[in-house]
């Protein structure tokens, strides 16, 4: 393998990193060996005065470490050794007597940034794809090649921790402001300016860098006492954010702290020790699995490869300009830059929808993720009317009208009369079976479901639901479009509730049962957030809307019978016109749109007294197992195509704790036998709704699992 090509001009060696056969540059053991040999050669070559490291890939400098390589590692020791070797190689870059300039265009992430940090000078391009960051914590790891040491030394403890603990990427302009790069140039002159910098450094020595951050920076970043404050604040914030479930950010903080307080040698030792521990740990393994699953989903069109051709979507029509319709419109315009036409029966609703869709763009403008001219261009793609003007040229129409079968059928009929015969009709429904909506369609092969989650611009999942009549071309078009909207897309079967709401339904219903037994609201929600969900079930009901929840509940009851019979909770709440957050009256109080404590007047309404003594374990078990059992049942019915889709759907659609890997992964980890046992106990105590799924019994009997071990 030759990943590096060297070209020497006027004493400056331009080293081009271009990993053969790969779309991006990654760091692996082989690359590291080659890099070390190269460093030696450059050191020994008297004709070389300085070095430029540049990438031969169009959109990446170095994307990071080869993740597959270290997931193959068998032990903590091996992982620790990998980190140590990485540190050694990167240190050789730093200790080179000849100045090395990193010429950065495109992604410079993880190990890539760690290499760049060890270089003596960094020049980045102003290209939008130029991003610098240390995303390791997102995989449950920490930067293990000196990143926890060199970044705080370069940009200060506060800025470094902000990047390392969140794993976020910075664009070139921010990187320059932080002092992470020394220069930002247009891509067209990257190479020549890097060569000039190397030449200058070789002649004049390394540059003196201004320290950023002013007086506050002086106190907080450069005094031990100030840094103690920084560490303490960071630790507190971390615990609040991770609930103690994710060890990596805490370990990264420690590696930074040790390095700054006890010197770089101690810091590096702590860094590779922690890296080894984390890499061998369960959380990182789960997060890496999820990473691979989402990566695989990005290449999965939901149909057999080569059997379908996606349609190009030049114009998107959206019917229904409510919260969902506007969210879909704004997200599509932002991410796909597609001409989007909003239709609603009432012009004032159209205006509101346009406002809400534009607000998604405005938020990006305010955060400077969009320039003013980009914003102007994108917002001009949004328009609306009370009629179907403009729909004849729509390639995809997404309907997001009121959740009522006849209304949706009516819209479909109107659309079919308006659009060209090739256009696709997608219905955004959370509960109504798609085949019922398309029952009277002239072209059922071009009808499917696209179930977005609310708020659309933030929720990462999209369920695409073909019916038996839907053509492969239609499926692949919807999947690709959803992906371009920035969504992780799973293709699920046209069964009531599809996947996400199917497994959510018994869980929320169990929350209703618990409420009827007087389990305090805050206790239930706290139990579930401690389990790792972002919100508890009661708070979630408030968010979703109690009317929506009840409607979904009755659809599920009708479809699945006694097991899903709704607890009386929601109808009692609705009887008192409590709709949840949307009308400011739910299980919680709302003040100016913010949740403000449990509304205790709910208890008498439900005819219960909040119980004093509650077994939190049991509360957790009843809620979680209701979901696990339903997941097993739905999976055996073929609602999802694979355990991968099932778990990704639950994590991205409901916020199932990522460190637990998803419901099916959790069943595997607990062991189907144990899950069955627990379900039997619950069945005995609380009734038939906990009867274990037949597929779980089979799995327990045959000691089978969802995933290969």
């Amino acid at each position, binding site marked *: 393998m030759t990943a590096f090509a060297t070209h020497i001009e006027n004493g400056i060696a331009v080293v081009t990193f271009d990993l053969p056969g790969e779309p991006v540059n990654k760091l692996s053991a082989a690359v590291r060996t080659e890099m070390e040999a190269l460093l030696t050669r450059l050191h020994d070559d008297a004709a070389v005065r300085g070095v430029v490291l540049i990438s031969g890939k169009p959109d990446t400098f170095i994307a990071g470490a080869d993740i597959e390589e270290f997931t193959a590692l068998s032990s903590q020791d091996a992982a620790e050794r990998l980190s140590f070797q990485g540190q050694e190689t990167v240190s050789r870059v730093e200790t080179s007597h000849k100045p090395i300039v990193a010429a950065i265009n495109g992604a410079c992430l993880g190990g890539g940034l760690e290499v760049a940090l060890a270089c003596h000078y960094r020049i980045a391009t102003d290209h939008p794809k130029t991003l610098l960051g240390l995303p390791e914590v997102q995989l449950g790891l920490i930067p293990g090649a000196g990143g926890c040491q060199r970044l705080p030394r370069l940009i200060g403890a506060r800025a470094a921790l902000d990047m390392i603990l969140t794993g976020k990427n910075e664009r070139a302009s921010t990187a320059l402001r932080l002092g992470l790069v020394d220069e930002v140039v247009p891509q067209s002159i990257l190479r020549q300016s890097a060569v000039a910098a190397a030449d200058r450094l070789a002649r004049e020595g390394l540059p003196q860098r201004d320290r950023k951050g002013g007086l506050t920076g002086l106190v907080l970043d450069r005094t031990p006492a100030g840094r103690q404050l920084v560490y303490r604040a960071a630790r507190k914030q971390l615990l609040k954010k991770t609930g103690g479930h994710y060890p990596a950010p805490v370990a990264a903080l420690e590696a930074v702290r040790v390095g700054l307080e006890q010197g770089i040698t101690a810091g590096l030792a702590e860094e590779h020790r922690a890296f080894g521990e984390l890499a061998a740990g369960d959380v990182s393994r789960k997060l890496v699995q999820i990473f691979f699953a989402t990566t695989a989903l990005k290449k999965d069109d939901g149909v057999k490869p080569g059997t379908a051709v996606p349609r190009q979507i030049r114009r998107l029509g959206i019917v229904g300009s409510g919260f969902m319709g506007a969210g879909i419109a704004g997200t599509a315009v932002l991410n796909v830059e597609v001409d989007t*036409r909003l239709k609603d029966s009432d012009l004032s609703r159209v*205006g509101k929808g346009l406002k809400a869709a534009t607000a998604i763009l405005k938020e990006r403008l305010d955060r400077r993720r969009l320039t003013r001219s980009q914003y102007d261009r994108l917002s001009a793609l949004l*328009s609306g*009317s009370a009629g179907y003007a403009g729909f004849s*040229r729509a390639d995809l129409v997404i309907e997001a009208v009121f959740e009522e079968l006849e209304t949706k059928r009516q819209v479909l009929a109107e659309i079919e009369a308006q659009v060209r015969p090739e256009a696709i009709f997608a219905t955004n429904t959370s509960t109504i079976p798609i085949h019922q909506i398309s029952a009277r369609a002239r072209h059922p092969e071009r009808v499917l479901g696209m179930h977005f989650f609310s708020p659309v611009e933030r929720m990462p999942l999209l369920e695409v639901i073909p019916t038996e009549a839907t053509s492969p071309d239609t499926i692949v078009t919807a999947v690709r479009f959803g992906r371009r909207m920035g969504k992780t897309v799973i293709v699920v079967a046209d069964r009531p509730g599809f996947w996400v709401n199917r497994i959510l339904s018994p869980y929320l219903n169990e929350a209703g049962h618990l409420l009827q037994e007087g389990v305090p609201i805050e206790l239930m929600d706290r139990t579930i957030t401690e389990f790792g969900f972002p919100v508890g079930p009661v708070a979630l009901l408030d968010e979703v809307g109690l009317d929506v929840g009840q409607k979904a509940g009755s659809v599920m009851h009708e479809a699945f019978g006694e097991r899903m019979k709704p607890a009386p909770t929601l109808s009692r709440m609705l009887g008192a016109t409590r709709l949840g957050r949307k009308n400011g009256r739910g299980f919680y109080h709302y003040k100016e749109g913010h949740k403000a404590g449990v509304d205790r007047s709910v208890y008498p309404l439900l005819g219960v007294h909040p119980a004093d003594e509650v077994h939190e374990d049991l509360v957790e078990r009843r809620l979680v197992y209701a979901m696990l059992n339903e997941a097993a049942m739905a999976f055996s019915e073929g609602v999802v195509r694979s355990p991968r889709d099932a778990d990704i759907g639950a994590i991205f659609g409901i916020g199932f704790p990522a460190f637990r890997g998803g419901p099916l992964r959790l069943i595997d980890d607990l062991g189907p036998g144990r899950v069955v046992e627990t379900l039997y106990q619950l069945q005995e105590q609380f009734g038939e709704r906990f009867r274990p799924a037949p597929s779980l019994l089979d799995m327990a009997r045959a000691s089978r699992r969802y995933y290969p071990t």
Partner: protein
Amino acid sequence: MLDSRRGRRVAIVAGVRTPFVKSGTVFRDVSAVALARHAARELLYRSEVDSREIDEVVFSQVVPSVLSPNVAREVSLLPQLPPSVPAYTINRACASSAQAINNAADQILLGHADAVIAGGVESLSDLPILHSRRFSQVLVDASKARGVGGRVATLGRVRPRDLIPVTPAIAEPSTGETMGQSAEKMAKENGITREAQDQLALRSHQRAAAATEDGRLTAEIAPWFTGPEMDQVITGDNGIRPDTSLEALAKLKPVFDRRYGTVTAGNSSPLTDGAAAVLLMAEEQAKAQGHEPLAYIRSYAVSAVDPAWQLLMGPVYAVPKALERAELTWAELGLVEIHEAFAAQVLSNVQAWGSQAWADRLGLAGPVGDVDWDRTNVAGGSIAIGHPFAATGARLVTTLAHEMRRRDVQFGLISICAQGGMGYAMVLERK
């Protein structure tokens, strides 16, 4: 007759406009560019045209913004259009967008284009206010001066009177006469009474109100969303007064000659903001793509008279010229749209078209014809609807073409008087 050697004919496929609103009201904070883009974008949707087919954008503006002098290019940079659509902006005063339509049509006739968007926009809320000539010179000198001291010294030359801003007036540069003064002069010289003017204004409002009520005018309008939640929707023109009366109009004081004058705010067109756009296509292309054109352009003509004479009499020459080119007589016109700058001007034009004495005076063979008000300005006119200078021509073409389709009228005409003593006329045909 507009029939090229290639035998092409130009179809008016669709026309859309913004609401026309009195300056300083709904569009107070809206730029002319935004108005123009709004009308043109809605035109693309309503016409159901494939936007990749658009070959050019011709727009017009009488008082352009210094910051975006070529509003047409801002229109053609709508993200719905390919960036490769060229665009230019013209000015023929109040006949501007009618002229834009003809420039576009000429390109189609020549075979240089198959589909063109033409229109016009005016925002009198978004007027360029200028510094005095002297103050501008001082600023330029100061920017060239050396050092802070030099700059301060240069700026010290400024006198208070230099700071009075210069606002553009609606006055003839050659005569210094304002438009209203010209209308006043025409009323006096042609013996147009106050009553006749107020009658015409009343009819304009009543007809515009009826055409708004029954949706004929509303159908031309792209709704405008406004308010903090964008849920206030403007679907109509806000200058139309359905409840006005002769008595109310009679109470208004003359503006330009307080003692002997007859021209009032009530019988003149108001200062207005708005935009209008029309999609033109070669007939065969339009039909091939399944469009049903509203009408076709049969002829047009432009004329000019000495501004020092009767400024707004241009149409008395343009109309017979356009009819001659169309090989038609006045009697064959099923519908006529006369731009109402002032009631005094409309009635002067009408008087001139209708008499042998005027024909002799103008050097025409005979009278053009008598105006039949049942077929003229049937949806009201500029006095009620408003008159955003460069948008009016496209508005008249749109209104006329829609009404021709509605009534199945074969021939229709628009007539516009314009600053500089110019007159403009266009003949449309239905089949």
